[in-house]
Structure formats: C-alpha cells, structure tokens
C-alpha cells in the first residue's frame, strides 16, 4: 500500500491544486445526498417524515438515487485517499471512518434493507434499526471530518 505514495497516480493527483477540492465537493455533495436519503428511510421507520408512504415504498423510491450518490462517494473517496495514502493510513480518524463505513454499508444493505422492505416488522425493531443506521452514518461523517483534526 505504501508503494502507492510514490506512484504516478499520486503525482498526477497532486499536479493540480484544484483536483483535491473538486473531488471533495463531489464527495460531500454526494454523501449529503445518499446519507440523507438513507436517513429519510430511518425517519420513516421512526414514524416521522413522509407518513402517508410505507417504509418499503420510501426504500424503493430512494434506493436508485442513494446508489447513484454512493457511487459518486465511493469513486471520489479513493481520489482523495490516493493524493496522500501514507497520511491517511496513519490517520486514526481515517481508519475509524473506514471501519464505520464498512459497518454502515453492510448494515444498510442487510438488516436495514430487510426491515425497511418488510412493512410488518414491529415498531420496536424499526426504531432500533433506524437509530443504529443513523448512528453508523453519523460516525462516518464525524470520522471523515476529524481526519483533519487528529
């Protein structure tokens, strides 16, 4: 992994002072978009928001848009990472963010998806799943921002 540091990719990414900020704008706009759409499902599971629509419908309607957002996030993220891999790998907040991201993605597309699509799960299960989902994604956001502060 450390070999990446001196790679042509890293050089190319650092050749213009605008590549990093532009990639970051894509990253932030897209994470706001996709996490926000996941949060809409969570809010519905908590019984608030667009109440006339079932959680399964909110999931189905938002899912393609969430995926587009996540695709942009997961494409722009590595661009940021590859600009300085060594710094990121030694940054505790970055490492935390990667674990949180893996957990959040896994949770969203397994348990969260299942509960959201089943309109028969109990309100207790829904509330727990929504809170876990929100906490996981909030951890990812905090982990990302704290990269600059640890």
């Amino acid at each position, binding site marked *: 992994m450390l070999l990446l540091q001196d790679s042509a990719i890293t050089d190319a990414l650092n050749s213009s002072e605008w590549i990093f*900020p532009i990639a*970051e*704008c894509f990253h*932030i*706009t897209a*994470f*706001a*978009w996709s*996490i*926000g*759409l*996941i*949060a*809409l499902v969570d*809010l519905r599971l908590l019984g*608030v*928001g*667009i*109440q*006339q*629509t079932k959680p399964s*419908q909110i999931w189905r*309607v*938002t899912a393609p*848009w969430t995926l587009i957002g996540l695709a942009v996030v997961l494409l722009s993220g590595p661009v940021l990472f590859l600009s300085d891999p060594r710094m990121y790998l030694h940054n505790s907040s970055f490492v935390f963010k990667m674990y949180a991201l893996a957990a959040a993605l896994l949770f969203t597309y397994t348990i969260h998806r299942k509960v959201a699509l089943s309109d028969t799960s109990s309100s207790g299960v829904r509330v727990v799943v929504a809170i876990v989902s*929100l906490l996981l*994604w*909030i951890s990812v*956001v*905090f982990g*990302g*921002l*704290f*990269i*600059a*502060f640890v």
Partner: protein
Amino acid sequence: MTFIRQSGLTYPVIMSTHLTCIAIFGGMIAITDLRLLGLALRDKPIASVVNGLRWWKRLGFVIMFTMGFLLFGSKAADYYPNPYFWTKMSILTLIAIHALIFRPRVYNHPEKLDASPVIPTRAKAAGALSLVLWTGMVCAGRLIGYYEPPSQKGHVVTTVSPQ
C-alpha cells in the same frame, strides 16, 4: 465564542454536527426536489412529501444555521476576508429569495399542484433551482477551507483546516 476557538474538540465537533445536518437535511431537500421534478414518488401526492417534511426541514435548517454561525463567530476574522465564505453567503441569500418567490407559489399550497394533471412548470423550476442552489452552497462551504490569505501563501496551514 472564544471558547470554541480555544477548545481543541469543540470546533471539529460543531463542524461535524453542521455536516451531519447537511446530510440529513439534504436528503429531505433532495426527495422534495425530486418529487417536484416528477422523478421520485410520482404515485404519492406532492402534498404528502412537502407537508410531511416541512417542519423537519425547518428544524434541520435551524440547527445547521446555528452550527454554521458558531463556526463563523469563533473565527470571524478568518472568515471575513475569505471569498468563498462570501460566495456561500450570497448563495444563502439566493436561497432566501427562492423561498420568497416559491413559498407562496409552490410550497405553501402543494394540494394545488396535485390538482393539476401535469406538474406545473413553477414547481419543477422550484425543485431544479433548489438542487442547484444547495449543491452550490455545499461546494462553496467546502472551498472556504482552501482559501489562503495573501500573507500566508505558501504555508501548509490554512486558516480553516481542510479535511
């Protein structure tokens, strides 16, 4: 607001909260705009989306604005000469104008939009402009961290730490 500047953790925690609100509140704006454009939830009344999210969006905006104001207040002297900060404030003003124009015509009477056989152009315009303005708002906000005042050019440390 000196305490925010002086405490190591307070500033990034406020900034993270600001960002978290952008994410959660941003999703509500996104789904509302997509519905107004006829790109999502087409089988649900516009009124159910607009009315269901109205107070949540307002709550999100208040928290986000408060956090943003605290960030500004703690380092006002640094933000003041920053052109991206003023770009962001200009976009915020445009968002206020968007609200003045489209609240009476779109958001306050979503039932009227549902009564129309096709989504009225004014609703689509409101949705499209909202998406553009909020995307600009997020990008300008991020770019604030990249401005180096002339006296500090060439230094690694910027006034507002980049991510």
